[in-house]
């Protein structure tokens, strides 16, 4: 879809420089979000997209600062509303490549009500959730994915709520592309992001992106991750749910896939259906009210 592509060096090396901006990320050293950002650069460079045709929409949080760091159109909105804003962008101009980004608080707490509806619509948007199990920006309170009993400023005697399982939720909502990535595995993550962006329909990419300042999980996560077996059939919903519910390890890879009509396609069909009898001019429309 690129109208004019960014030239890439020969020999398979990719040049991410055209996608960088001169805004320096505010993130703490070691923050998982750096890794995610780099993978996004690499995906954009590999796909040779042109900056003016990309829109990165975000909510509010450390991770939601990301759009400013990418040379593309961006819309840094309000807390929790990234999906409906992205829906508006994509629906109004389906030619754009729309990517949604943000944190787990943005996605699964304040904005959680929008997820099933983005799933039902199957909006053609890839949503990258940088999950660090805390609200990073507000200094590390437990989020919807935080482990129960975790002690933080607002839970001095331990987190009261059990954590949400975002992958199981996504499969239950029948999101048409569900994957888990890890910012500590950039090669695989780039591949997952690329697949998510290429997917025609709603892709939810749950990315483990540790918060080094308030909840550093690099070590335990690195020990528990495993790549999804090549034998896993992501179109098998029950098998996918089984993977999602796995407790011992953290499966990384494409967990669930269900190719179906996207919202953009539905909108197009609606337009065509409505125009079956020709496009009425305004005077004709007025006549019907006489």
């Amino acid at each position, binding site marked *: 879809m690129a109208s004019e592509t960014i030239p890439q060096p020969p020999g398979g090396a990719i040049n991410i420089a055209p996608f960088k901006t001169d805004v320096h990320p505010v993130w703490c050293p070691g923050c998982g979000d750096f890794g995610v950002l780099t993978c996004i650069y690499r995906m954009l460079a590999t796909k040779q997209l042109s900056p003016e045709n990309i829109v990165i929409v975000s909510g509010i949080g450390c991770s939601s600062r990301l759009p400013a760091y990418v040379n593309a159109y961006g819309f*840094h909105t309000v807390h929790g509303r990234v*999906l409906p804003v992205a829906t*508006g*962008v994509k629906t109004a101009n389906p030619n754009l490549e729309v990517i949604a980004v943000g944190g787990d608080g943005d996605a699964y707490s304040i904005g959680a009500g929008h997820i099933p509806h983005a799933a039902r619509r199957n909006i053609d948007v890839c949503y990258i959730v940088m999950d660090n199990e805390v609200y990073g920006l507000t200094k590390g309170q437990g989020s919807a994915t935080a482990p129960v009993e975790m002690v933080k400023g607002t839970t001095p005697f331990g987190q009261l709520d059990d954590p949400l399982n975002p992958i199981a939720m996504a499969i239950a909502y029948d999101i048409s592309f569900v994957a888990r990535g890890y910012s500590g595995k950039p090669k695989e993550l780039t591949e997952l992001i690329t697949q998510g962006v290429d997917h025609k329909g709603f892709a939810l990419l749950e990315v483990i992106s540790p918060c080094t300042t308030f909840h550093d999980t690099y070590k335990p996560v690195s020990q528990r991750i495993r790549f999804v077996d090549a034998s896993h059939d992501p179109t098998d919903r029950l098998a996918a749910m089984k993977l999602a519910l796995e407790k011992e390890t953290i499966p990384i890879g494409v967990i669930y896939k269900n190719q179906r009509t996207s919202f953009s396609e539905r*909108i197009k069909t*609606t337009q065509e259906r409505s125009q079956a009898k020709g496009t009425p001019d305004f005077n004709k429309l007025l006549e019907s*009210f006489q």
Partner: protein
Amino acid sequence: MMKDVVFRVGGEGGEGVISCGEILTLACARMGNEIYTFRSYPAEIKGGYAMYQLRTSTEILLSQGSSVDVQVCFNQEAYDRSIKDVRKEGGVVIYDSSSCTPSGTLPTHAYGVPASDLARLELRNYLTKNIIFLGVLSKLFGIDYPILETIIKQKLGKKGEAILNLNFQALKKGYQYVEQNIPKKDLYFVEKVPVQEQRVILSGNQALALGAIAAGCKFYAGYPITPATDIMELLARELPKQGGAVVQAEDEIAALSMVLGAAYTGAKAMTASSGPGISLMAELIGLAGMAELPAVIVDCQRAGPSTGMPTKTEQSDLNHAFYAGHGEAPRIVMALSSVEDAFYGIIRAFNFAVRCQVPVIVLSDQYLAQRTATIRRPDPSKLVIEERTKPTASDCENYKRFRLTESGVSPMAVPGEKGGVFTATGIEHDEGCELSYEPENHWRMTEKRFKKLQLVLKSPDIYRRHGVNDQEIGIIGWGSSEGVIREALSKANDRGIKVAAFHPRLLNPMLPEIGVFIRSCKKVIVPELNFTGQFAREIRARFGVDVVCFNKLAGLPFTPDEILKKIEEVHEQIVHHV
């Protein structure tokens, strides 16, 4: 013969009261008359008291009228509730004599028709009762019989031959009943008049939706709510034909979020809701102000806070429209004053939104949204439609989305346009979208965002002035009461009271002309359908003068007589120096 007639039909919701009123309205309009309807119905689909009022005349109509000339009562409850509103001298009540016993002081003419019995026993279908009454009205007041048949056919044709014939029989039954049993003694009559100019029959919501299409609206997102939903229904049918899209959002937060996403791509976008939905949108109104996005937000006001009285009218969301959201975010607030103004006003709203790159909140209300009127058929070739200020090639050399300019408006690039790439944000930022918490920057950018609002102050049609020019008494109303005020005013002028009205259609930024008008009056009355006098408070704060609040809080619009009475009362005070 009296050719200005206020009809009212009352009965149980689900008995066809509304469709009876609608068919009557359409018939009067097609006979070449002016129409002005007023609806009030229960929130439940079936059951509860429902009422439909129609005023029809050969002359231009400004209000629903002050009293009822012809009352049709489908049952006892309708009778008991409405009899007090019927004109005593010369008024008419038509009641269902099978279910209703008239009592109390009757108006001059009372005609009983056993409509329930006719429907149940002779036509074997109780649901034909409303059509029987239409036949009655046809014979009594000259409502054109063939026109009624045509409308019934248009409305019921889809239900099959049998149902249609049954309803034709019902129409005839009512007609013949009057012919054989009721000698007409009243003076009301609906005349058939030649139509001078092309007209359309629209509800406030329909006019608004059509205006939005004319303005170039290409995206609508909304969540159903009374009394705004029919805007979405019309757009859902029509926008896709124009290459646009309508999305039924999961809530109003999502609706406005989607609208802002669409606006960000350069599409003209709108949402419509009522109080509860508009309350949910507060945070996003601030985002629209901060990210300088053009968006139109329609509030069809209903009565009361919380769920309040969903099917009743009120003008109590003005505070919210002016101030919703934290911090200080610019917005334009407009109020629609008539069905015709709903069409042209929403076009103005889109123009203002793109001109200033701000959210425009358009206040309508249940009374306006759901009443129908005949208006001159708009000529699309005469409409002025504005588009966003686009960046020039030199703007794109070093593109600054929020460049400081004389007017405050910065050229707006949209995705897909090379050279314009930027990240919009609700965080305070400088000209070039760089985040900044510097005190001077916050001050400067806030000033920029507010400065833009001045651009609408000199626009045409943003207020109306009515009445004499050497006024002693001024009336400043807003929104849908314009016609009612005008009617009261001309009666008062006829009685020699020097009164004039200033009716702003643009409420925020506030028109300096309001101050000039106030200073030219001895006293100013501000009629509002709210408890606390919301616009009066704005006027006092802005111009430092006092006004006479005239509030009504009944879930119902003002009547001309109520305003007239207030004018006379204030007139007395001036005469006697109280």
